C-alpha cells in the first residue's frame, strides 16, 4: 500500500501484541451504525507514473500565456536557488518550531525574515508572517482596535482604491467583532484618496486609517499628508505596501512626521510563484510599543543554559494555545515555507538587486503604458505617478477585448468594470522586469488588432 510500510508479518505481530484479531477490532468503540460502507465517488488509486501523466495533461491544457496581470500578485524572476533550498525536506517537512532545540534552522530563518521585513518597511519589529496580504490587512485592523486606546469607535477608514478583495476579506474577518469600515472615495482625475472627503471625519472618533501604497490602481498616494492627518485625529495608520516597491519608495516607518503604526502587505513578490493564488505570505511590522497587540508567531533571540545564543518562539502568552478565548487572534501557524522562500530571495537580491528589480519593473510598465496609449482609443485613466501597474481607459467594453487577446495567448490585464463600474471601460495592466520589449510589442500589436477588429465589426 502506498506510503504504508507494513508487511503482513508486521501486522500479525502488532495485532498479537495489542491482543486483537483484526485491525477492524480496534474500531469497536465506534457505534456500528455510524460506520462507513463505501467511499463511492473516490476513484481507484493511481501510481506515481500515472499521476504524473495525469497532472502533466491537466497542466498542458492550461498552457502558459504572456501575462500582463498584476492586481496584487506579481510575476518576478525567482532565482533558482530559492526553491531548490526551500523544498529541502528539512524545511519542507518540519513543523512549527515548538521544540526549539530541534528547530533552530526554522527559528533563525524566521528571525532573519523579521529583521529583513522590519528594515524594508522602516519599522522596528515584525512577526513571522500571516496567511496572505489580505488577511494581514484584516488582522492589522483588528490589532489597531486593540492598540489605539484613545479610540473606542472601532471605526476604520479605508480608501476605495485599496484592493477590492482586501476590503472584502477585512469585512468577512472583522465585522463579527463589531469593526466598521468607512469607504473613502478616490479623486476621479488622479485615482488618489480624495482629501476633501476627510473633512467630514474631523470631529469623529476614528480608530485607524488604511493607506495602500501604491494603491490598487498602481497610483502613488500622498502618504505623508495622509499619515499626518490621521495622527492629528488620534487615528493609527495602517500601511499596505508592495515589498518590491519599498526598494524605491519611502518606507511606512518614514511616512509623515511620525511614520505609520502598522505595516502589512503581500510577500508573494519576494520569490513566491503566482501558483493560482497561493500559498503566499502576509507580512506585518509595527512599533515596539505595540508588540503585545500584534497577532501571529514571533521569534526572539535569547540564551541557552550554557550562555550561548539561540532562537525561540516568544510572547506566546498572546496566542490561542495559552490564552484561548482571550488570545489576540486564533492564528496558530504562519506561512513558514513561503517565509523560507522570501528570506532566501531577499538575501540573494540584497538592497541593490531589489532596487534593480523594482526599477526594471517600473521601467517596463512605463514602456508598456507608452506603447499602448499610442494606440487610438487607449489612454491613461489617471494623471500622476504610478508604480509597475496602471489603469488604461479603452473606448469600448473591456471584456471582449480581453477575450480577443486571450485567443492570441495574451492575458491583457484585469477588467475593472465589475469592481469600479464608474470608471467605464477601465483596464488594469502591469509589467515587471520579466517582460521584454518584444513582449510589449506583441501586446501592442495584438491590442491594436483587437481594437481595429472590433471597430470594423
Amino acid at each position: 500500500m502506498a506510503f504504508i510500510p507494513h508487511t503482513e508479518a508486521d501486522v500479525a505481530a502488532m495485532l498479537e501484541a495489542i491482543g486483537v484479531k483484526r485491525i477492524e477490532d480496534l474500531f469497536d468503540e465506534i457505534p456500528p451504525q455510524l460506520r462507513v460502507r463505501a467511499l463511492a465517488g473516490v476513484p481507484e488509486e493511481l501510481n506515481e507514473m500515472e499521476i504524473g501523466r495525469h497532472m502533466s495533461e491537466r497542466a498542458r491544457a492550461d498552457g502558459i500565456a504572456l501575462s500582463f496581470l498584476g492586481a496584487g500578485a506579481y510575476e518576478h524572476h525567482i532565482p533558482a536557488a530559492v526553491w531548490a533550498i526551500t523544498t529541502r525536506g528539512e524545511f519542507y517537512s518540519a513543523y512549527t518550531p515548538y521544540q526549539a532545540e530541534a528547530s533552530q534552522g526554522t527559528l533563525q530563518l524566521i528571525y532573519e525574515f523579521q529583521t529583513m521585513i522590519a528594515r524594508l518597511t522602516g519599522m522596528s519589529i515584525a512577526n513571522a508572517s500571516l496567511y496572505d496580504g489580505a488577511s494581514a490587512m484584516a488582522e492589522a485592523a483588528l490589532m489597531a482596535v486593540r492598540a489605539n486606546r484613545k479610540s473606542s469607535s472601532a471605526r476604520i477608514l479605508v480608501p476605495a482604491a485599496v484592493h477590492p478583495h482586501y476590503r472584502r476579506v477585512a469585512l468577512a474577518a472583522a465585522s463579527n467583532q463589531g469593526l466598521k469600515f468607512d469607504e473613502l472615495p478616490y479623486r476621479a482625475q488622479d485615482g488618489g484618496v480624495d482629501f476633501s472627503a476627510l473633512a467630514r471625519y474631523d470631529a469623529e472618533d476614528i480608530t485607524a486609517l488604511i493607506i495602500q501604497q501604491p494603491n490598487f490602481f498602481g497610483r502613488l498616494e500622498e502618504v505623508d499628508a495622509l499619515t499626518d492627518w490621521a495622527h492629528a485625529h488620534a487615528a493609527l495608520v495602517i500601511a499596505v505596501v508592495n515589498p518590491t516597491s519599498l526598494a524605491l519608495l519611502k518606507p511606512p516607518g518614514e511616512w509623515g512626521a511620525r511614520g505609520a503604526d502598522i505595516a502589512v502587505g503581500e510577500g508573494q513578490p519576494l520569490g513566491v510563484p503566482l501558483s493560482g493564488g497561493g500559498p503566499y505570505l502576509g507580512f506585518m511590522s509595527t512599533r515596539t510599543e505595540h508588540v503585545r497587540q500584534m497577532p501571529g508567531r514571533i521569534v526572539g533571540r535569547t540564551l541557552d543554559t550554557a550562555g550561548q545564543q539561540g532562537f525561540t518562539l516568544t510572547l506566546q502568552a498572546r496566542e490561542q494555545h495559552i490564552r484561548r478565548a482571550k488570545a489576540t487572534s486564533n492564528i496558530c501557524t504562519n506561512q513558514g515555507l513561503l517565509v523560507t522562500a522570501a528570506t532566501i530571495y531577499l538575501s540573494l537580491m540584497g538592497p541593490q538587486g531589489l532596487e534593480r528589480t523594482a526599477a526594471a519593473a517600473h521601467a517596463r510598465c512605463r514602456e508598456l503604458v507608452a506603447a499602448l496609449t499610442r494606440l487610438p482609443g487607449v489612454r491613461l485613466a489617471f494623471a500622476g505617478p504610478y508604480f509597475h501597474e496602471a489603469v488604461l481607459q479603452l473606448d469600448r467594453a473591456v471584456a471582449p477585448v480581453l477575450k480577443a487577446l486571450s485567443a492570441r495567448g495574451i492575458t491583457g490585464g484585469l477588467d475593472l468594470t465589475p469592481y469600479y463600474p464608474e470608471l467605464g471601460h477601465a483596464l488594469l495592466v502591469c509589467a515587471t522586469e520579466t517582460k521584454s520589449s518584444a513582449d510589449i510589442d506583441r501586446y501592442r500589436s495584438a491590442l491594436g488588432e483587437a481594437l481595429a477588429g472590433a471597430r470594423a465589426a
Partner: protein
Amino acid sequence: MPSREKVIFEYSHPGRGASDQWPRDPGAAALSDLPASLRRRRAPELPEVGELEAVRHFTRLSQLNFSIDTHFYPLGSCTMKYNPKACNQYAMLPEFLSRHPLAPESQGQGFLSCLYELQEMLKVVTGMEGVALSPMAGAHGEFAGVAMIRAYHRARGDLARNEIIVPEAAHGTNPATATMCGCVVREIPVDAQGDVELDALQAVVGPHTAGIMLTNPSTLGVFERHIVEVARIVHEGGGLLYYDGANLNAILGKVRPGDMGFDVMHMNLHKTFSTPHGGGGPGAGAVGVGARLLPYLPIPLVGREGERYRWLTEADLPHSIGRLSAFMGNAGVLLRAYIYMRLLGRAGMRAVGEYATLNANYLLKRLQQAGFDAAYPKRRASHEFIITLKRQARELDVTAMDFAKRLLDYGFHAPTTYFPLLVPECLLIEPTETESKDVLDAFVTALSQIQKEAEQEPGRVTSAPHTMPVRRLDDVRAARQLDLTWKPTAQP
C-alpha cells in the same frame, strides 16, 4: 547535528551580491517620474552576500532542523506523516506555478478541474454536502465554520444565539475562534473516561446556544462514544455541531463526520492529506457543510457546468460569509492534497485510518508493557494516545518536558507535551500510518532507556538535550528582553 550558524547579516559585505540573479539596470531616467518626496532616502539594509554564501547559509540552517524526512516526528494532534515527493513535484509544474490567480477561466481548466475534483472527493470522505477550499489553515477553517453558524442563525432571525460550547480539552483555537466570531465560550467537562459529560452539556444548551465545537476522536486520543447523544442534545436545543478536523486521520474511511451528525467542519489538509507543514505553514483548512449551511460557504468555490469549470463568487452565493483570502486560499497546497488523494484512491483512504490506528494502539501497548502509564488505560487508542509521566515527576522529579528534550538526543522529535491541559505531565503521541514497526520499536527502546536514566542518572535527563545545536533556551529572558530583529552590535 551541525553546530550553530551565523546570522545572514554577519556574512554581509557592502558591494557584494548575487548579481547574476538581478535584472539589468534600466538607468536613472527610468525613475524620473517618481517624485523625490515619495522616494526612499536610504537603501534598506538587506544582506549583501554572494549566491554561494546564501546557499551555504540556508542549507546549513536547514540542517539544524528535525523534519519528517530526517526523523520520526510523533507530534500528537499534528499528523506528521510522510509528504510524498510526487505531490510536490507535480504541483510545481510550470503551468501551475505561472498561473495568475485572476487569469481567465478558459486558461485554467486543468487547474480548476483538479480543485473541483478535490471538493468532490472531500465531500465523499467527510459525508458533507458542500466543500470550500479557500481557508488557509485549520484555524482559518474554524473561523469560516463558526462564521457560517452565526450567519445561519442570523438569517433565521435567531439573534440570541451567540454561545459556542467547547469541551475543556479542546484545542485553544476553538475558543479563540469563537471569540473572533463575536461569540461567548461555554466550556463543559469530560468524564473520567474522556467522554463529554452529557448532563453538563444538557445544562448549558439553551436558547443562546449557537453550536458546539468538537474533535472526534477527541484531543484525549479516544473516540467520543456519546456522539449520537451529543448531536441529539445540541440539535434539539437549536444549535449546530462543528467538527474540528484535526483528528480526521484517525477515522478516514471508517466514520464520516456528516454521518455522526456534524453540520460543519474543517479538514486540515496538511495533516490528513499530507501536504507539507513547511516549518509552520502553509496549511489548508478546507471547510465542509451539510445542506443547511450550503448558502453560507466562503467564496470562491469551483463549479462545473457541463464540461467547463468556473469560479463561483458573490453572484452565485449572495449569502456567503464572504472572501477569506485575496485569491484562492493556498491553491498550490490544494493541488498537493489532490495528488495525494488520487495516489491513495478509495482503498488507500480506508487504509489510512486503519494503519494510523494500528500504529497508535501498538505503540501504546508496547509503552504500557515497558511500564509507562496510559492516561486512559481502559480505552482504545485512536490514531494517538496520551501517556502521563506524573508518577515520574512525583517520584523522580523528572518531568514530561525532560523526557521530551531527552528524546531529541535519541534522534526522535518529541511528542506534543502539556497538551491537553487536562492531563498532568502528558505526552500526546501520534505515530501516523507511514511509520514502520521498526521505528515504533526503536522509539519504545529510547523511552525505556530514558526511564532508566531518570531512575539512575536523572541529571542526564533534566539537563537534556545534550546533542542539539543549543541547550535549553531561556524563554523568560526571550519574553522580557525582547530581541526580535538583528542589530550589528547587540548581544543577546
